[in-house]
């Protein structure tokens, strides 16, 4: 009896993203066996690398009981900085550093308002997002942005043994994040705040500082995601769907990270891959845009319900 229940518990510990991923992979294998080769799947995975890097930041803030909706604004701003032609004379490295600095700064403002000022994270990051979008639109003033420097494009198209460079970069970043959260004191702090902020506070965990740091790291991740996103398009764009932010939350939840659950990097990682595969499967079946939205919503809801039921039984 004990062994059966422990087996069941182990099965339930698998993040829903892995189950969904397996189902989608089998569906694709049955429907289109010829698409199951690394080159094609790698190209699909490359499309979700920006989402994947946003998720690395999002899972950190969500596990410390906060949320960050400002990723869209940061991506828009970085995209504008690179493609507007303002920095054409600059070499590559300073541009990248400037963009990362922008992410850090926005993350710091978010973090200070949420952690120190104790304002609601939903509202703060929403407001920051509104301000950033307005700022970019004001700077662009209706003009279409220019070209993205060719170096970015070249980096994006690089492949090592048929695996695209952005995908390898994403895997490496996820590995660093996983090791960092698993081995550092900061990771323990995030975990304890996620479980119970009050007891974390009374156990001597610097709650405010940890929340600020989580938001700063998230801001940095969003800037990195923005760089990859910008490299993926030849020409700059002033339009980014808010769906990137929504999908990042969805992938995080699908990966088994819920408010008040330990930060887990690989569950959400597979969650992002699910989104890539879901897109492929639905395109092959011929599902239109409305159908995609409905299926996506259903999958998120079912994953969340599954988790809700599980946490109730515990």
């Amino acid at each position, binding site marked *: 009896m004990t062994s059966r229940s422990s087996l069941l518990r182990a099965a339930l510990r698998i993040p829903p993203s892995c189950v969904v991923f397996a189902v989608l992979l089998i569906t694709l294998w049955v429907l289109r066996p010829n698409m199951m080769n690394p080159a094609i799947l790698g190209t699909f995975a490359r499309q979700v690398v920006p989402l994947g890097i946003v998720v690395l930041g999002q899972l950190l803030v969500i596990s410390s009981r906060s949320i960050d909706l400002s990723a869209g604004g940061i991506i828009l701003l970085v995209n504008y900085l690179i493609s507007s032609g303002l920095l054409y004379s600059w070499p590559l490295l300073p541009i990248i550093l400037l963009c990362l600095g922008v992410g850090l700064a926005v993350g710091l403002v978010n973090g200070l308002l949420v952690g120190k000022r104790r304002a609601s994270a939903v509202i*703060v990051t929403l407001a920051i997002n509104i301000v950033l979008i*307005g700022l970019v639109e004001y700077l662009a003033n209706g003009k279409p942005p220019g070209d993205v420097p060719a170096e970015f494009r070249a980096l994006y198209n690089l492949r090592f043994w048929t695996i695209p460079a952005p995908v390898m970069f994403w895997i490496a970043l996820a590995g660093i994040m996983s090791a960092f959260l698993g081995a550092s004191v900061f990771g323990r702090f995030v975990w304890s705040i996620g479980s119970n902020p009050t007891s974390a506070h009374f156990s001597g965990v610097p709650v405010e500082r940890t929340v600020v740091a989580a938001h700063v790291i998230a801001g940095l991740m969003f800037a990195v995601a923005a760089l990859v996103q910008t490299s993926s398009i030849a020409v700059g764009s002033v339009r980014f769907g808010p769906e990137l932010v929504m999908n990042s939350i969805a992938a995080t939840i699908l990966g088994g990270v819920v408010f008040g659950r330990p930060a887990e990097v690989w569950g959400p990682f597979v969650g992002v891959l699910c989104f890539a595969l879901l897109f492929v499967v639905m395109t092959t079946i011929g599902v239109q845009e409305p159908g995609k939205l409905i299926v996506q919503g259903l999958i998120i809801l079912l994953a969340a319900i599954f988790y809700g039921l599980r946490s109730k039984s515990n």
Partner: protein
Amino acid sequence: MSKVGRIFFPANSRHGLWTIPLLVAICCCVGLAISTADFVSRQNVLNLFAQAAPLILVSIGQMIVILVKGLDLSVGSVVSLTTGILSLNAPFYVTVPAAMLNAAVVGLLNGVAVTRFRVHPIIATLSIMGITQGAAMFVRPSAGGTVASEIVALVSGELFGIYMPVIWTIAAILVGWKIVHGSRFGLHLFAIGGGETAATFGIAEQRNEVAAYVLSSCFAAAAGIFLAGRIASGDPNIGTQYAVDSITAVALGGTQLAGGIGSLHGTLIGCGLLALIANGMNLLNVSAFVQTIVKGAILLLVIALQPRKNIGL
């Protein structure tokens, strides 16, 4: 800044900090009346009502959900889907009940997911938003169709010499006041949101929360009916901004996202302030992009002025 708050309003109020937004709104009004001649014109004031009415409807529903520690991101897609249903080729006595029934079902799904299945409100309403938006795009893939003339008449024109949007606004306020401040259900909302165990003894917490989500969707559907009448057609994207705008308006009015603190008059002030900003800056010829920045900045400012105990959401 909490000292300033205490001067304007005593501590521990259930209604939240709504006096500062009110002062900001009054300053906006005075400033606009002085700086532009058109602001106090009859036509402009009527425009203001027409702009604010759908936002007021959505925001009242949003506030009811926020009072019980929830959040409803699906309101915008409900607005869009409602205009889609109304623009179907059917008489109004079929489409209007169908739209309201549909909204009630969406609200019920939200409420059941949040209470019965313990899904976080953001996740639950986010996924329902996806489903509803998909349905809206299925019903009406792009803007078009025609809405029954009765619905158009319900929104434009006058009744007893009163402009229809004004009547809608007053009706929304009366219904909202009855629900939030004039009924036992409203009192229960505050008790559940307050989160004290003692307050919720004897209150059917889950049932009331589900009712809050259903009401929110129904208010959004009412806004959808209003908008469908205004544009006389359906549009799958017309509601997109209402999720963010309604949360902004509710937060501007001093309602706390942690639940249990908020007021109808605060929400109305928040909606009024948003409408005033848009209207005033149009009159002053400020570009739409700067308007967005100012909207975000005001929201940040008001939020930073509200002291809270909890960190995070």
